[in-house]
């Protein structure tokens, strides 16, 4: 056998052949992804049949046969009628605001709009001045929102002058003293502490009446709809983050009593359903405080929701604290930071960034759980939908289904957006760690 002389003719690879027709383009994609084996082919055919069975009916129900405008439920009760969007349209104001006085809706709208602006500011990764946004959202916004929504002053009325009376020296003197303290703080470069104090003083003086800036008082039994759902969720979020951080620190504390108390609280509340916490807040809480302090019927479930979400948040934050390498703590101690500064400057920033996806996931769970406040008589969005479908003018099977589909779409949009956000933050975080 003669060996060809490779040196005389340098090796020239012939150009690659294109892949066979069956491996390319649409066909190739389908072969690989839809018909790679017999089982796969059967599953594909089955799925296509399933879709062909469901999708046309679904589209017909939601769009083609749907009733888009009607003055009452009559056309929607006709046999073969699809989704009754006219009903959603007619009830939209009620679904959004509950029984809030219709001429006062601007108050709800401005609270919701400013809350949305602050939330976007806080969550937008590229936004500047997150510290300002955090102070506004966690300290100032709740007070303003309370004042605007209730029309009551956000301060304990026992500390305020009686209605209609002049502002007297007994109020002004302490206010001026706190203002002086605030200015001192600002000079000491504790700008944020000073700013918040100063703001509170101004607010205190401006709102030193029984009602807030002269607004009419709207009691909480008139509140309802999407607005209350968002309110419960926001209260849960605003309280759960700081309380959760405190509980997580308590659980990892070296002080045995504090650690024990934190563990007991966290494990008890995590071991029971939210409904029982709401029952407890609704029936037991009023028994434990003096009659004069008996909490408002909306405040009770809010306390329950805040407690419940705090303990779940504590577990998320604890995971983050445990993920911070031990060397970070040791380095912080070596440079002479005390415990508070070690946590504020070294541990918590790393821990909280690491668990942003977990935090957002517990916000999603919290948002879905706000529907349960209906059990103690709060008129949240889902309850509003669930009661309005019984309105005799609109009652009908297709109308009930439409209400639920609308509610599902609303919750889905919020939760899906949040979960996408958490995935985005997870990727950003992972990108910084990749080597």
């Amino acid at each position, binding site marked *: 056998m003669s060996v060809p002389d490779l040196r005389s003719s340098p090796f020239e690879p012939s150009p690659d052949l294109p892949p066979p027709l069956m491996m390319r383009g649409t066909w190739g994609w389908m072969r*690989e*992804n*839809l018909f*790679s084996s017999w089982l*796969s082919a059967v*599953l*594909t055919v089955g*799925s*296509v049949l*399933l*879709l062909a069975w469901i999708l046309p009916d679904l589209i017909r129900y939601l769009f083609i046969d749907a009733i888009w405008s009607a003055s009452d439920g009559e056309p929607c009760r006709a046999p073969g009628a699809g989704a009754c969007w006219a009903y959603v349209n007619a009830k939209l104001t009620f679904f959004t605001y509950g029984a809030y006085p219709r001429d006062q809706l601007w108050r709800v709208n401005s609270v919701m709009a400013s809350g949305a602006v602050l939330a976007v500011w806080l969550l937008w990764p590229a936004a500047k001045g997150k510290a300002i946004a955090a102070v506004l959202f966690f300290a100032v916004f709740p007070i303003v929102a309370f004042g605007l929504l209730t029309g009551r002053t956000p301060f304990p009325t026992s500390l305020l002058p009686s209605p209609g009376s002049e502002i007297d020296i007994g109020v002004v003197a302490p206010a001026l003293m706190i203002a002086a303290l605030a200015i001192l703080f600002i000079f000491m470069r504790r700008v944020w502490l000073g700013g918040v104090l100063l703001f509170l003083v101004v607010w205190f003086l401006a709102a030193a009446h029984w009602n807030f800036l002269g607004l009419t008082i709207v009691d909480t039994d008139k509140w309802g709809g999407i607005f209350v759902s968002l309110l419960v969720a926001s209260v849960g979020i605003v309280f759960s983050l700081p309380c959760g951080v405190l509980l997580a620190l308590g659980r990892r504390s*070296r*002080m*045995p*009593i*504090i650690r024990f*108390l934190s563990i007991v609280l966290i*494990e*008890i509340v*995590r*071991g*029971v*359903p*939210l*409904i*029982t916490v709401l*029952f*407890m807040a609704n*029936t*037991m809480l*009023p*028994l*434990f*405080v*003096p*009659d004069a302090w008996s909490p408002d019927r909306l405040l009770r479930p809010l306390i329950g929701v805040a407690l419940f979400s705090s303990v779940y948040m504590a577990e998320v934050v604890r995971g983050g604290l445990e993920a911070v390498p031990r060397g970070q703590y040791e380095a912080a101690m070596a440079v002479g930071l005390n415990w508070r500064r070690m946590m504020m400057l070294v541990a918590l920033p790393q821990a909280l960034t690491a668990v942003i996806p977990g935090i957002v996931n517990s916000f*999603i769970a919290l948002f*879905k*759980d706000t*529907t*349960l406040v*209906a*059990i103690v008589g709060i008129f949240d969005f*889902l309850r509003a939908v*669930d009661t309005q*479908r019984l309105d005799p003018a609109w009652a009908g*099977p297709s109308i*009930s*289904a439409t209400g*639920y589909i609308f*509610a*599902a779409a609303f*919750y*889905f949009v919020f*939760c*899906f957006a949040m*979960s996408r956000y958490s995935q985005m933050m997870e990727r950003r975080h992972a990108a910084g760690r990749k080597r």
Partner: protein
Amino acid sequence: MASMNDPPAPRTSILNNPLWRGLFWQILTLAVLVWLALQAFDNAVVNMRARNIPTDFAFWNRPAGFDVNQTLIPFSSSTSTYGQAFYVGLLNTLLVAAIGIVFATIIGFTVGIARLSSNWIVARLATVYVEVVRNTPLLLQLLFWYNAVLKSLPGPRESLALPGSIYLNNRGLVLPEPVFGAGIEWALGAVALALLLAVVFAIWAQGEQRRTGARYHALPVAIGLLLVLGGGAWLANGSPLSFQAPVLRGFNFAGGVKVIPELVALVLGLSLYTASFIAEVVRAGVTAVPTGQTEAAQALGLRRGDTLRLVVVPQALRIIIPPLTNQYLNLLKNSSLAVFIGYPDLIQIFAGTVLNQTGAAVQVVSITMAVYLAISLVTSLAMNLYARRISLRER
């Protein structure tokens, strides 16, 4: 050595001694908490006396005087007590949780594996299911199933007939009733004996394989045992189990096992909702097994089935089981949503009706919370023991 050159320890103020500071803060916290608890207790005594709320457990043995539409133990409004009502509710909660866990596991594993499928359309369908179900509230789904689906079904006369003589109508689900003939205990005993022998054989075969390397296939032996022993005893006793199909008589079905629509809606809602979370747990568990493990198994010449059975699944299960248990606990806790659609569970009967009738808010709410807490704690204790047993022992 070094102590000779070290300067004497600086005298620190007692204020800066971490031990004393820790003690100070702990005593302060404890004092505040004790003070708050005493205040709460005082207020509770005053408030409960003012509102005539009972503070003892005397209500437990008093007649209940209400009816329950699904009871697993005998219960009647005239003779039964509030204490018996508690057990009825507890059993109903456990019933719905048990059924829900079975269905949620089956659907969840199926969907989780489907999401990992190489088939594009199957993976997409599974993803759509998981995203839609996970991102809408469970309560909404329950209300949808109960009010929009089950309540708008036709009446018993126009029931939807499902395969296997199962009928679905607006009064719930009607299943064929099992009829036990004579000798059923012998037949079931033989099946149990066959299963026991199969397990013993599997354990022996495993030990033998570890010792000598010889493989004894346990599965064919188990099937053979079951067929010969179980099937033989079954036939010898004349097939003692039969099903009696329900028959439509007048306006309703006669015979058959009737399942109330509340239970149907609750099981549907709970298992579909929890399944979407289980699917994610399964997917995460399987993807967490490094690709190198599969490649190594293939390099050793294991077949695809053996690769899965011996390499991938054991490692994936180690990751899956703790969060899976968590999902089971969530399902149990979520079954408390039964109260919204009127299924007589622990919350609806005990924390609802009994609380309203007796007014014993503190006792009733505490007992209810203690029940859920006990189940949760026992489960997580068992889970910790299990996790310790299967945890990787690293050198």
